[in-house]
């Protein structure tokens, strides 16, 4: 990847990638791997960008896809390797941010299903229902209901952790 491409086309949108990768990873090491894989994937797929959507929307979509694929691979590996950890114990609190409330919110987001994580991240990033549906590859009909349900679930998890 040329450093010029990274500086001009990826770095200005790094916040998007960071926010998404944090929601799909439990450790700093995993986060760095996911982040870099997303960057590489953006660079590899840059010629496929058809300008039908904004560059940032495309980055959201690609980041989510890479994270979901990585997570799937990780799950498969865990299925093959015996582990004593219970699912909740796997979700280690990574304490990635100095803001404690944000850390808690991320911990709660990580307890959602993979798709719900993507939906709520896009909602928090103030994407419209149409954009969320486009990025997640669903229709707009149930996005509103789904977001309400996810928010309730998040509140419940956050209240439990207090």
């Amino acid at each position, binding site marked *: 990847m040329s450093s010029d491409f990274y500086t001009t086309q990826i*770095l200005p949108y790094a*916040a998007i990638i*960071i926010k998404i990768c944090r929601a799909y990873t439990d450790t700093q090491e995993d986060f*760095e791997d996911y982040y*870099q894989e997303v960057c590489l994937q953006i660079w590899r797929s840059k010629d496929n960008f058809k300008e039908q959507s904004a560059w940032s929307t495309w980055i959201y979509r690609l980041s989510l896809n890479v994270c979901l694929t990585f997570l799937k691979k990780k799950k498969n590996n865990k299925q093959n390797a015996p582990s004593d950890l219970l699912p909740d114990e796997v979700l280690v609190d990574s304490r990635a*941010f*100095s*803001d404690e409330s944000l850390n808690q919110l991320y911990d709660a987001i990580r307890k959602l299903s993979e798709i719900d994580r993507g939906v709520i991240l896009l909602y928090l990033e103030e994407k419209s229902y149409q954009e969320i549906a486009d990025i997640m590859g669903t229709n707009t009909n149930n996005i509103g209901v789904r977001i309400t349900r996810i928010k309730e679930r*998040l509140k419940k998890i956050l209240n439990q952790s207090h």
Partner: protein
Amino acid sequence: MEKSIETIWKEGFLKNDALVAPKLNDLYNQKSIDIVEKFKRMYKLNRIGVATFAIIIIPLSYGTKMISMGVLMSLLFTVVFFIAQKYSKQLNQIDKNTSSYEYLSSFNSWVKDMTALNSKLSTFMYPYIFIAMILGFWFIQVDEEILGNMFINGLVSEFPTTYLINGFPILLLIPFFLAIGVIAFFGSKIGKWDINLVYGRILNRLENTLSDMEELRK
């Protein structure tokens, strides 16, 4: 009052430390080590396989009464094992105290040397295996008679006018040498196919990572 998740989100990311992008090059270091280590493991397994085959082929050939084939195959696989051992030593000598690009480039040169040699060897190796197998069948004893001799006798009685060279009918020698020629001609290709079958995926990863890194260095 408790903050809404929207407020937590917005306020949390206003802090400077929240969005620090990690450096990009670490992944390449990791990938380089992963690729070479995985290859080393596969190469070791391959050598163990070759050595095992060189040993078990002897009792196997004894059991199937094709001892000459067993001895010749065992000899060949022993030689292949020692060549692979020599190459393995060279692989372990690749300097790890260089950049990941230099490390992978050195590994790539080693792979090219190894595949070039394998390609050359295959030109001789596959005809050798063919000859070993023919000899194996040839010297099988059936009712105290050698199968090869029975075959020649049958051929000569079927074609009594056939030309003989050192007691071997030309009708047998022509297809035999023709087959050797064809196998030798395709030996190098078979060798490449063989390498690709075993190491293809990892060598593709090596190629992709190297080209990524080359692009990054521009």
